[in-house]
């Protein structure tokens, strides 16, 4: 059975990764205490993260994702939310040696041309402003009708 790895950058069941994965999937959260130690997370940070995961009512495992995920997925596709987080990127790269891994990004606030100069925020904002200030429902219509 396919697994959705719910990691600390997307502790939610309301993410496009679930629409891509379909209904027959098992979302799980993995508590990797070694990673928390490496990042020197305080107790209050860990409690907050645990509460967010616990709130989803999904199984929580303790250990390393690279060891737990392949066993649970047993050859089936592993899905996860996209993030720039190196820890997640490294786990995904490792899993890809043995599994099909699908990474799905959350929708972005703004749509800007790929070649936009983002060297400073206000250059980005000037290009991003129009779509950022548009409700998702209207943004979608715009994208659908774009040439």
């Amino acid at each position, binding site marked *: 059975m396919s697994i959705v790895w719910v990691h600390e950058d997307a502790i939610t069941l309301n993410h496009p990764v679930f629409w891509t994965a379909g209904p027959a999937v098992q979302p799980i959260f993995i508590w990797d205490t070694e990673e928390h*130690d490496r990042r020197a997370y305080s107790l209050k940070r*860990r409690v907050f993260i645990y509460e967010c995961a616990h709130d989803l009512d999904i199984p929580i495992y303790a250990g390393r994702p690279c060891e737990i995920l392949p066993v649970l997925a047993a050859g089936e596709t592993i899905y996860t939310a996209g993030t720039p987080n190196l820890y997640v990127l490294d786990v995904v790269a490792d899993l890809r040696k043995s599994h099909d891994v699908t990474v799905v990004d959350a*929708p972005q606030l703004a749509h800007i041309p790929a070649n936009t100069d983002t060297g400073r925020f206000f250059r980005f904002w000037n290009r991003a402003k129009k779509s950022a200030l548009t409700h998702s429902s209207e943004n979608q219509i715009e994208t659908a009708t774009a040439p």
Partner: protein
Amino acid sequence: MVSLLDSLPPGLAKPCALKRLEKSGRDKVVSRVKDISPGLADSDVIISEIRGGRKAADQCLAHLNPAKYGSTRNHLDGAVTRLSPYIRHGVVNITDVRDTALDISSAKDSEKFIQQLSWREYWQRLYKEFPRNIWQDVEPYKTGFSPDDYQDNLPRDIAEGRTGIASIDGFIDELLTTGYIHNHARLYLAGYVCHWRRIKWQAGAAWFLTHLLDGDPASNNLSWQWVASTFSHKPYYFNLENIAKFSGDTVDTRIETNRPLAGTYEELYARLFPNLEPKK
């Protein structure tokens, strides 16, 4: 959703999920977290009042007032949302937050709020482009100093909120006990660490990431670089008058308890950045 699979390839030990805790009972959550975090120091005992989970995020969203946000957001008691820990951990998505703002207010009244949301997206995009460079200076310092002039480690008096400067110690205390401080307080602390104490932004950023519930390598490290001037045109600094203006009665801003921060911008500039041309 379906329940966990039972059929595993032979020879592989099936990992066991942790036993589910009752919904209520924060004490149980805390003791569970301690049980599964053997690397935590015994001295680390502080738990924030801020709760994790969607319900708590929805409570913050329910108070969203984009128009009031625009006019008060720089004040420590302004109408900011405190959504950052939930956004940081993806409990809510920024597009949903943006849509909620636009449901409540016009695009014009929501603009300042959505612009602030866009800062997060901006930092995330840069992080995505250069994920391995998040601890490196983007540009040289524009303070008249080189990186070698800055101390590598955060001194204990800062880490523990015992600098002797009342306003700074107050902000640190809030950071350590709640895991959340207002954007302006973050700017004051980062400015103090980088420019008054001449400590590398990396040391301050790592300290924030330990404590902030919204601690995020992109928003945090790049904001520190913006203050330090390694990702901006000039260093960010402030004076006591500025803290007094934006903090109301909530912060001790008496001169006698905050001497190193007192002075005009010109005086402080000359003191903090002696190698630069004097500010006119």
